[in-house]
């Protein structure tokens, strides 16, 4: 078990906070992957709903993550930048604007700073309009559940997840699942119990972590 400089073991520090701390290290591939796995859907979904294509949205994901990588150190030390949730929203918006500018070949908008520059602009979340806030909040919550499901997918067997998907998400009757997959009813109930419990637990953990950022 590793300990940080405060003497606390990682066990007693909120995981997401620890993750953001670890992201300062460019070489920490596992932490960056965890960050990417948790947030890419959120960024991608917002980009798609802004009218970008799949390819453009993928670029937004990449460029936003690069922006986070470049400026996470400053964010960690400057609380004026607000919450991580608001900061990530701003980065995503700017990268979406970049893609729209590319499409229309408009000159760079001075109101939308290019985070490739060395200075990170201070862009309080209060400056954003209410609709955007609501949309982001909705996406954030959706992403929370999806991130929990994604994490659980990595831990349970693929077969158990398929059963959970058919019974819980698609509401198939047990008899149809057993005949389609060639398994017993007991296997269906066991998979449902295990996967549902894991997702609930993971969602609670994520919610707690995100509130503490």
């Amino acid at each position, binding site marked *: 078990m590793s300990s940080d400089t405060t003497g606390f073991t990682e066990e007693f520090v909120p995981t997401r906070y620890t993750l953001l701390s670890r992201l300062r290290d460019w070489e920490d*591939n596992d932490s*960056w*992957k965890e960050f*990417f796995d948790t947030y*890419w*859907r959120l960024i991608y979904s917002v980009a798609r709903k802004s009218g970008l294509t799949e390819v453009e949205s*993928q670029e937004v*994901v990449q460029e936003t993550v690069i922006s986070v990588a470049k400026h996470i150190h400053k964010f960690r030390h400057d609380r004026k930048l607000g919450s991580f949730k608001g900061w990530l929203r701003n980065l995503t918006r700017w990268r979406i604007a970049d893609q729209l500018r*590319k499409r229309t070949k408009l000159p760079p908008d001075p109101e939308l700073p290019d985070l490739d520059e060395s200075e990170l602009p201070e862009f309080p979340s209060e400056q954003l309009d209410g609709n955007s806030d609501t949309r982001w909040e909705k996406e954030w919550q959706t992403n929370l559940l999806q991130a929990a499901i994604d994490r659980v*997918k*990595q*831990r349970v067997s*693929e*077969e158990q*997840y*398929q059963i959970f*998907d*058919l019974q819980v*998400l698609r509401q198939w009757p047990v008899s149809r699942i057993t*005949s*389609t*997959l*060639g398994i017993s009813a007991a296997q269906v109930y066991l998979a449902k119990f295990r996967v549902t419990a894991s997702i609930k637990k993971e969602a609670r953990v994520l919610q707690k972590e995100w509130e503490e950022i």
Partner: protein
Amino acid sequence: MNPETTSPPPSIPEHELIRQIGGGSCGTVWLARNALGAFRAVKIVQAESSRFRSSLQSELNGVLKFEPVSRLHDGLVDILQVGGGQDAGYFYYVMELADDIATGQLINPEHYVPRTLAHDLKKRGKLTIGECVRNGAAIASALGFLHRQKLLHRDIKPSNIIFVNGFPKLADIGLVSKISGPGGQIGTVGFIPPEGVGTPQADIYSLGKVLYEISTGRDRNDYPALPEVLTDTAEDRDLVNFNKIVLNSCRADYGRRYQTAEELLSALVSFQFSRYDPRKERARRLLIILVSAGGLLLFAIIITLFVRRFLWLLRHEP
């Protein structure tokens, strides 16, 4: 076109560049005609800023490793010529041309659109299980060959599988590298395994995701969910069985995946030989009907004999 490479393309020896047919962050792909009039695809990678120098060298290294083996397996796109270099600020490679989506190998330069697995998937939603097995086996065979050369593809996805004379081939070799061990998140999101690229098992994972998309019609990020519509037809029963191969290719724990492309190929071939055969199914159903009818007839005869015997006994009872 990539904004970093907006300058005119360099001239390619013995080739006339006709028009750009593709492009991405690492270069542009052109439809070209060689001195003999044959159509080719030419990829040009230009590094107009220092930002792209390292990726240019990285891709060039991969192409130079891939080129000697590319023509030794039918499932790999043929690299016919390589030129330029880092000192020139660009390099290019000439490849065989993919079929046109409408006319196959009859190329009309004005309307040419390359046929890829992604195109087929987009057009048809999903492929039949028979097509999934054939495409999967062809690419698994090519992948096994590449791995035996100690090389990895690292970017297997439907848009990087082209058809030449109707035969699927692994293309877009920009990320080809030597086997290095797990780690790194290079490639395309959703096709990269949890442990990262760098091993043959990572390529197998990516191919498994391709098989998932083409067999279910769902996005790779939905994995392992089964198709939205699943009926009690023979094709869907095949799909459920085929899905077991997909799961064994894409296990999150890479130790539980097929360890070699040959294992995956073997599973696909075995599946093909054991899969649902409509003639066998008809024969099986006919047999069930005949046996059932025979049983009923026998039962009726026994009951009739029993009743007759019973009535006879009643009549002759003293």
